[in-house]
């Protein structure tokens, strides 16, 4: 059972595993793997707790539905699955500032948290604008040869590469 306690697998083994997993989600749940809608419905459910039923009638929340659904449970599962994998390999660690960030920008926690917050806002906003994320478009849509997904995935990386080069001053 050494494969369970290995810190890293070949990216190809992990990728093939995700591909096989996508067969099963289509076959059993009739749904593609995807994560970002669950964050959008969560934002609506939090607002609903404060604002009441009117939130669910807003056009966007009405379109995606505000409930704990299949994809919401999938995202919860991702947290737990990653936790179990990291625990088994001894790779779990509580860490505020990632190594690469620390080398470039120092060990202070607040700058990293604020950057993560701003990045998260762009990501949550952009994922809804594009109607999908790296899993929904980049894996599930791309493997179905969807035109919308291939265009999205290519522009995720164009935007990401340019921004990363700017952040790390490599231009």
């Amino acid at each position, binding site marked *: 059972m050494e494969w369970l306690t290995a810190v890293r697998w070949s990216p190809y083994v992990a990728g093939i595993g995700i591909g096989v997993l996508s067969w099963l989600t289509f076959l059993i749940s009739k749904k593609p793997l995807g994560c970002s809608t669950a964050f959008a419905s969560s934002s609506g459910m939090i607002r609903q707790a404060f604002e009441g039923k009117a939130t669910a009638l807003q*056009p966007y929340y009405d*379109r995606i539905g505000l409930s704990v*659904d299949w994809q919401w449970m999938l995202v919860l599962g991702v947290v737990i699955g990653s936790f179990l994998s990291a625990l088994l390999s001894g790779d779990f660690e509580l860490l505020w500032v990632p190594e690469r960030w620390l080398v470039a920008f120092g060990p202070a926690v607040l700058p990293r948290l604020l950057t993560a917050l701003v990045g998260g806002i762009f990501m949550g906003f952009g994922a809804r604008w594009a109607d999908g994320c790296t899993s929904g478009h980049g894996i599930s849509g791309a*493997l179905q040869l969807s035109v919308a997904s291939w265009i999205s995935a290519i522009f995720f990386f164009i935007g990401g590469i340019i921004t990363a*080069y700017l952040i790390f001053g490599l231009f």
Partner: protein
Amino acid sequence: MTQQKADTGTAPRSELLWGLIFGLAFGFLLQKGGVTKYDVIIAQLLLEDFTVVKVMLSAVVTGMLGIYLMKHLGWVELRTKSGSLGMNVIGGLLFGVGFAVLGYCPGTLAGAVGNGYLDALVGGILGILLGAGLFAELYPKLRGGVLRLGEFGNITLPDVLNVNEWVVVIPASAILILLMVWLERAGL
């Protein structure tokens, strides 16, 4: 944006259970693949280490061959989304900015939380909820305008080329496999 409207009722318990089981496997594979880590994602975007692309492309090739075979056998139906240049190009770029600034994407953000990364839990999760909420707020203004710019609908590459799907699936798989072979040869 012609995606089916979600059911308003609660999903059956078995459906939720399958979601959780598939999520457990997905999170396990993401963590073992190394893509729940900021350093790995940033190294990908700086084009130094192609782990993220390798995971994605091998998932796409494996998934594509299986899904199109099962579609051919009548076991599954495709679940694609419609799009437009306004949605997928502009949204893609905005997402890309977030991808690099945050250093995780929505799925790997959840995985990073499980891995113990607190920048993901505290900054990332709050940010993504705010961003998605902001989009919901602006959606009534965007949906008739920029999101419909250059609309092309719900189409696949075989539709565009008007050929049998295997005429695309087989060469596309071959090209993606060759791309991965080239990445290995180049030591990336």
